[in-house]
């Protein structure tokens, strides 16, 4: 059994935002995630790293039940959000996803205007009572995503006409427009150029503290730059969890050291 001890040195006394307890995920015959225990905290950016196919994206998609749409995917164990099991029967998936937002690998703005993209979530959840309130939410969300000054004169342009980096920040604005508590990011920079990546990373840094952020990334440098906690996965198991600085400077497990020094993966 690998070392799954949870490092509590910076978070003693704090309540975890989300707790993952003995979670197994299977796709048909494939055992993708094998018994993970992990706590995620409000003030942290947690990075999930590991080679392709290690189950990190699968685990991430369990946190807002996006795996529900995959037919032969089964999840065992429990995942708690503020102490409530999100896989419990009485949980409304729609409500859950409003609290746990998600940003995808490729920017996926809707083929609607920039304004409508951001207003999409608030509209379906009835967050604004009138047009002015909606305008405010849209402006505030774009502001938080650092996109307001770039798009304020073309809110009526199609979201798909923005550059790749802008599109991804638009997707982040869209996610924060519904006031989530947790934001999941599945390799949010993998399709962006280095400059756009730097802007998104800076944005993640600004958002941390306001939202619990979980980011899956293939870039070790990115994990080191944006996260406070890092989890290393291999073959569906959690190999090591700890402060990002500790994982990258003094990994306890040999496999972690091999991976971050580029010897496999």
């Amino acid at each position: 059994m690998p070392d799954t001890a949870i490092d509590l040195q910076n978070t003693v006394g704090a309540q975890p935002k989300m707790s993952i307890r003995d979670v197994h995920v299977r796709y048909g015959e494939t055992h993708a995630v094998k018994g993970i225990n992990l706590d995620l905290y409000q003030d942290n950016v947690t990075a999930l790293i590991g080679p392709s196919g290690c189950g990190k994206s699968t685990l991430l998609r369990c946190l807002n039940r996006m795996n529900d749409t995959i037919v032969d995917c089964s999840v065992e164990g429990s995942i708690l959000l503020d102490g409530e099991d999100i896989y419990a029967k009485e949980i409304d998936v729609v409500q859950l996803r409003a609290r746990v937002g998600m940003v995808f690998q490729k920017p996926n703005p809707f083929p609607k205007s920039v304004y409508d993209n951001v207003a999409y979530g608030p509209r379906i959840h009835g967050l604004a009572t009138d047009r002015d309130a909606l305008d405010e939410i849209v402006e505030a969300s774009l502001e938080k995503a650092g996109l307001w000054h770039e798009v304020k004169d073309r809110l009526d342009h199609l979201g798909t006409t923005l550059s790749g980096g802008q599109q991804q920040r638009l997707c982040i604005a869209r996610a924060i427009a519904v006031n989530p508590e947790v934001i999941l990011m599945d390799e949010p920079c993998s399709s962006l150029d280095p400059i756009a990546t730097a802007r998104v990373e800076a944005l993640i840094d600004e958002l941390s503290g306001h939202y619990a952020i979980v980011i899956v990334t293939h870039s070790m440098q990115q994990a080191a730059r944006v996260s406070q906690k890092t989890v290393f996965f291999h073959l569906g198991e959690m190999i090591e969890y700890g402060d990002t600085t500790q994982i990258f400077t003094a990994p306890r497990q040999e496999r972690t050291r091999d991976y971050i020094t580029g010897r496999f993966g």
Partner: protein
Amino acid sequence: MTNATIVVVLALMALIAFAVVRQRSVALVAGATDQLHSLPRYHGYYAALMVALPGLVVLVLWLISGKYIVENLILSGLPSALVDANAERLDLLVNRIRLIAENGVGLETDDAILDAAARFNSLYGRGIAATLVLTMAAAGAGYLYAVGKVAPLFRARTRFEKILHSMLALSSFLAIGITIGIIGSLIFESLRFFQQVPLEEFIFGLKWSPQTALRVDQIAAEGSFGAVPLFAGTFLISLIAMVVAGPIGLFAAIYLTQYASPRTRNFAKPILEILAGVPTVVYGFFAALTVAPLFRDLGMTLGLDIASESALVAGVVMGIMIIPFVSSLSDDALMAVPDAMKEGSLALGATPAETVMKVLLPSALPGIASAFLLAASRAVGETMIVVMAAGMRPNLTANPLEAVTTVTVQIVALLTGDQEFNSTKTLSAFALGLALFVTTLMLNIFALRLVRRYRQVYE
């Protein structure tokens, strides 16, 4: 000996050429095939084509012109009294001769004709023999040419590819040429029609009654050729069909792409598509024998008078027929929306229904619109169902409970049975056909444009 013999002989010769030349190419390099530019089998293919193609050209020429030549020979050999007696309809005389030549003496008593029939058979037999010889000669020449060409550095593969290339191109040009020919004949005959009936009357006339006198001595009303009632009937029925097929097809597509499990989808989609494979004549009698009485009885209980041939029945059944077109094309349009859109919407806490309404349908709209247009063009051109269920009487009405007729039904009515080919009545069928063709062509072009223009939204 028949024409089939020639084909068999030619095929055998090509096969022999393939085997011999292939062997020869191997022998030329003493088995070291790596010294050949082309693999031995390509030398063989090339030789086979060189044998088969010239032979085929001769054979095709014979098949096209053979009977014609023989007939002319027979005619010139007939007693002049017989020719003069039938001077007006020589083709009938020829037919009489050929009938006997092919089917035996029968009731024919005229010695001159019996004699001509015998000569026809013997001449035709000689024609085949001559063709066989010529075919073999052409094939033999091709063979000699191919054998002369075999050499280690001869580019048989390139040549073979080139011949293949031109044969494929020829096939596609043939198809295009035939299309152009059909359109050309439609236009040509329509022009003849419009010399007799003014275009304005055809397009704006409200009365369709094509009963013209067949012979000079016959008394009949002056026909009127206003196509409006026909097109009104066509569009009324198509509209009813779309009202049935549009929602059902679209909802089926939404269910199958968004809600159904893969197992349900794999099971339901092929069955839905079987609907498209049902012959339209089956729909036709389903409409006439099952749906029409059902609607009439239903109408009676509601106090409505539904004719036993009504636009409603034809439209509803036609709607059932085009459901698979709408659903299958809408299905494609919905599947073309990237999953990322759906996931993005779901991840924001939208319900599946909200996701369909606000993201998927708007994104797939051009594709869905074109699905509707293509289905409508199908409905406009559909014939069998309306022939059996819609009625024959031109009737300018918007009441779906009455019998109406459509363009296609009228074309069928105009061209079935004995017709004088040059009458205005018959020619009007071509004008109707042309108008119908232009309508469906417009719908199709518009639909394809729509898809092409908006498809670039996703790369």
